[in-house]
């Protein structure tokens, strides 16, 4: 009886403590949420009277006025697809530039990240001070938002893709450097010992012992980053750092919301294609990694 009473008391106390904890958590959360909505003027901001009508109006302006019977006519005919995508050659060119920016930046960033990863991997860099400072540097890069960096670099390098490539390369280096160093630290030493036992040289050891272990992981992370960089590059043009974003900015300046939708669809398609290609390559790499 005594033990049961004790257990009941304990259970009540625990339950009460739990409830108090969740209640205070909920209170803090609601307070922050309330302040956030108030600060961001979410409910108080004047978006021009009738908000629902405003949203409807905005959507109708975004959707082009396509006519079924002239859909495949040339761009001079109002209501055709070519009229909607009236600047397609320019957009495709800028879209390709965006892809190039993403690829070049990913390659440069991956090389930078690779070098940094050797400097901050516990099993490869014996000097603790170097490891520490390289890690802090990579952390600082990861903290800085891409577009803030892009703004600064556009001020220095001028409007154009150069600023965008450098921005993306730096931020890629920040994230890949960390991921690569984790891969380096996970290299299985037993395979290397086995090779040592068979008496091969250092180059053969790296070629057959280290690279097969790390390469598929490196490539897989770099390809995931490439997908992210393409989306990033599409936005960079808005601040003048090259790529398709500049056309988005232009469409907004002339309040051509239907054009905006056209370019947006183009960007979405582009990202989708790169995602699929990168996924296919990644799956093959992982398969290859297993076969070895």
């Amino acid at each position, binding site marked *: 009886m005594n033990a049961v009473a004790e257990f009941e008391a304990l259970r009540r106390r625990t339950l009460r403590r739990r409830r108090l904890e969740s209640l205070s958590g909920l209170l803090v959360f609601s307070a*922050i*949420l309330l302040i*956030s909505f*108030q*600060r*961001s*003027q*979410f409910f108080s*901001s004047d*978006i*021009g009277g009738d908000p629902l009508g*405003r949203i409807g109006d*905005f959507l109708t*302006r*975004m959707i082009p006025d396509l006519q079924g019977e002239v859909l495949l006519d040339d761009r001079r005919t109002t209501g055709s697809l070519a009229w909607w995508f009236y600047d397609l050659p320019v957009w495709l060119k800028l879209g390709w*530039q965006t892809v*190039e*920016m993403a*690829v*070049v930046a990913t*390659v440069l960033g991956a090389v930078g990240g690779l070098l940094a990863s050797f400097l901050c991997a516990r099993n490869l860099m014996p000097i603790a001070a170097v490891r520490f400072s390289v890690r802090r540097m990579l952390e600082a890069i990861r*903290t*800085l*938002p891409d*577009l*803030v960096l892009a*703004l*600064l*670099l556009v*001020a*220095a*390098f*001028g409007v154009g*893709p*150069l*600023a965008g*490539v450098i921005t993306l390369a730096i931020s890629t280096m920040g994230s890949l450097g960390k991921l690569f160093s984790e891969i380096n630290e996970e290299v299985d030493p037993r395979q290397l010992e086995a090779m040592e036992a068979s008496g091969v040289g250092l180059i053969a050891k790296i070629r*057959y012992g280290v690279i097969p272990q790390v390469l598929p992981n490196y490539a897989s992370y770099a390809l995931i980053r490439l*997908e992210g960089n*393409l*989306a*990033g590059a*599409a*936005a960079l043009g*808005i*601040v003048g750092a090259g790529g398709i*974003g500049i056309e*988005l900015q232009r469409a*907004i300046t002339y*309040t051509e*919301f239907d054009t*905006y939708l056209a370019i*947006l669809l183009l*960007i*979405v398609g582009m*990202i*989708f294609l790169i*995602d699929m290609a990168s996924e296919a390559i990644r799956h093959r790499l992982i398969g290859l990694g297993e*076969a*070895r």
Partner: protein
Amino acid sequence: MSREIQARAYLAAPAAMGGSWSRRLKTVGLTLFAVAAFAVMCIDLKLAPEALLAGMDKFDRLAASAFPPSDGGDLPRILKALAETFAMAFAGTVLAALAALPLGVLGAKTVVGQPVLHFAFRRVLDWFRGVPALVWALILVSAFGLGPFGGVIALALADVPSLAKLFSEAIENSDRRPIDGVRATGASPLMVLRYGLAPQVTPVMASQVLFFLESNFRNAAVLGIVGAGGIGFELEERIRIFAFDQVFFIVGLYMVCVAVLDTFSQRIRARLA
């Protein structure tokens, strides 16, 4: 005899035995092609060393003018803008989570059994997953006017597809057995959700939402560039007038705030896991 063994080993594991000449040729060819493609892209983007050097030179001068950093006597305004940026990130994340919850449930294979529907739903989410918040913000600000309203919606729109996907994966990965166990006691469907599913998926989802809050705080910094308020507006204004000492101050302060939020949220996430 040893030749025969070698041949057999070669057949069994060609990669381990060094590969054939045609294979090597293919590797070399692919490498050369990749290097050439990279070079062509660099030329196409006009990534010339002289442009790089000129820019570096200018960047050095800008960096030199950034010392010592100063708040330009505008500290209260900067702090207010930072608070606004955090508010946008928080409101946007909460809205995104609320919208993603029903979508995530619909996208879970275990909830919607229909494979075609499931596939179509996932694909639509996939298409819009890549669109960055800034791209949404640009048009929303133009539609709804200057101010943080468009920014909040933009952040939410950018997060919903990824969050919904992660939520549905969390639901799919939940263990059937606790759910069956609760059901076996004769509990109502609501009770099954509350005591069978919720304890499994809530920590996972909460941790994902916190992760998105961190990244939204970073993304929110730039929304001001297109007029959605917050610290981005202050930054762009100062970059435009080349007040780099103030830019440096704001960026530094902002990075500290990001680091604080990250540490805080990582600690909560570690507790949730």
